[in-house]
């Protein structure tokens, strides 16, 4: 899709992975008709391809990329889409989005313009989540806030939608074994390779509700913790310097104690949304269901007592 910028037009591809969200994807495309075209690549597991037939019928011009994603990993989907798009030399930029992210055409063009027109190149531009205006409150107190050709942006990281230069997108690989944080991985990769022009475009607002059914969502919020933890392991191993910068004091011991004592998050774990940890802690409930990760409490002590009965320690 050609997008007009101050430096001329650029050819942009759009990458959207989807999973168990037929209706949501149809609604998203209905609301954002500018995405419907041959430059929009939809990634879907081949076992779900038939289920998405209504979407294909409604929007026949979309390009579909199918793969066998077992076990389901978002990093794998993103990588398959990346390979498909990167193989096409016609594209200058790619906009990475989700099946539930909603934004208008102005946001789309502003996002691409921000990435193209920002003086320090190559630049990656992220959208500005509506909930972030809560922090801004009009004061615009952000690091390195700049206005370039009327597009306001500040230095920072966010998740999709993101406009990424194809030069970077072609040389980068997604880790296929992560189920969360693949966007963070990409930012870390860029920073480690010296591409530190990463902006959040204030004029590219988008909305997108977190923890929706489908996608990477799992019904059990504690399953999500395991995924987040394992993804963190991949990221921290790959970029130890960035994780070490924050120190291990980032471990939320209050939650760790509560989880170890058999409590669980009722709805969704913390992270992302601006909620007070004390509020989340108060919401946690006793978990009587099957324990998956946590070993049985006091096993060690019982085993020790049994042994002590037979031989002196």
């Amino acid at each position, binding site marked *: 899709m050609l997008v007009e910028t101050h430096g001329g037009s650029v050819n942009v591809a759009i990458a959207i992975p989807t999973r168990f969200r037929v209706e949501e994807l149809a609604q998203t495309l209905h609301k954002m008709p500018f995405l419907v075209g041959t430059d929009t690549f939809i990634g879907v597991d081949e076992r779900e391809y038939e289920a998405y037939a209504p979407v294909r019928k409604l929007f026949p011009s979309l390009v579909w990329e199918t793969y066998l994603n077992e076990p389901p990993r978002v990093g794998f989907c993103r990588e398959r889409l990346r390979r498909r798009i990167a193989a096409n030399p016609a594209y200058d930029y790619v906009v990475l989005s989700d099946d539930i992210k909603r934004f208008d055409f102005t946001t789309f063009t502003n996002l691409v313009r921000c990435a193209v027109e920002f003086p320090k190149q190559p630049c990656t531009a992220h959208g500005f989540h509506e909930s972030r205006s809560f922090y801004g409150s009009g004061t615009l107190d952000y*690091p390195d806030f700049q206005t370039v050709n009327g597009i306001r942006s500040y230095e*920072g*990281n966010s998740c999709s939608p993101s406009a990424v230069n194809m030069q970077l997108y072609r040389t980068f690989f997604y880790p296929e074994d992560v189920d*969360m*944080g693949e966007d*963070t991985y990409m930012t*870390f990769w860029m*920073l480690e390779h*010296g591409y*530190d022009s990463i902006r959040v475009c204030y004029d590219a607002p988008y909305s997108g509700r977190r923890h929706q059914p489908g996608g990477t969502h799992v019904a059990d919020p*504690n399953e*999500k*913790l*395991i*995924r*987040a*933890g*394992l*993804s*963190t*392991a991949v*990221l*921290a*191993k790959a*970029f*130890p*310097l*960035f*994780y*070490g*910068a*924050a*120190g*291990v*004091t*980032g*471990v*939320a*011991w209050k*939650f*760790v*104690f509560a*989880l*170890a004592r058999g409590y669980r*998050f009722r709805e969704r*774990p*913390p*992270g*992302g949304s601006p909620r007070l940890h004390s509020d989340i802690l108060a919401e946690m409930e006793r978990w009587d269901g099957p324990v998956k*990760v*946590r*070993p*049985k*409490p*006091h*096993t*060690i*002590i019982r085993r*020790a007592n049994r042994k002590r009965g037979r031989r002196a*320690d």
Partner: protein
Amino acid sequence: MRIETHAGPREVAILIPTRQRADVVVKQLKKMPFLNHSDVFYGLDNREAKSYAATLANAGLGAVHCTFVMYRNEQHSVGFCRDQLRLAGLKRRPKFDLFVVTDDNAVFKEESLTNLVRCSVEYPVQPNLTSGSGELMRYYASGKGGALKDLRVINDLRSFERVTHIFTAVPRIIYRRFAYPVESLAAEDRYRTMWALSHGIFAIRECLDAPYSKPRQQPGGTGGAEERMRATGLGFAKLAQDFPVFVGCTGSTPARWSLIMQIAKGYTFAGKLPGGSNRVSEDELISQMVKKE
């Protein structure tokens, strides 16, 4: 060394890994002569043995009775050192009831050691992980910082629920079953706490009557700022891999993006890393950073 408690005498070993800090060990032994005991185990890389022997011989300490555990620590892994000390402590006969795990630059009084051991042994919930109290918590305890969680006084020893790591009493029952991850270059103490929590040991206490002090990030030990950061990151990865629920409970991303951006731009920490007693604002931390040459 034998320490009297209300529950009877306990045999206690003190386990201290050290690296490139022979002079600090000399200072430690001068300040705390009760550590010059065969039940105090110092762990060091065998390539440093000569330099340590020379420094200790010339320090005027007289006969050094401590036990030195030698190993080859190629990766400078703290987890490896701690595990070697753990194994050496477990092998010794007669058996130790309790292991006090500390650092080569931690300073505490004999009374503090006794109180730590007593607090660990006399606390009603067994087994437990009891740690000494740093300066920050003693400030809180003076009533300026609000209420302490689950503060209890057992036989005149005050303790409350909190995770700290520098001067910790570990009962034999825990040390026999737990093993430090060798690949954990740092954060092995957090690993121990998470392991305990995942095995149903929730009595993690800090004893206010067992004070210690410790200068942070002295030369030697884990290394310079960058080496520490890398080691901490890899240690964090090991924690996340083995305890994904505990680490994942705050999402998959570290929140300190402004620090990360600065590091990516070629800056590094001039002195202390964030965390521990260096809990200052991000802006202040960034102002402390220096451009790498």
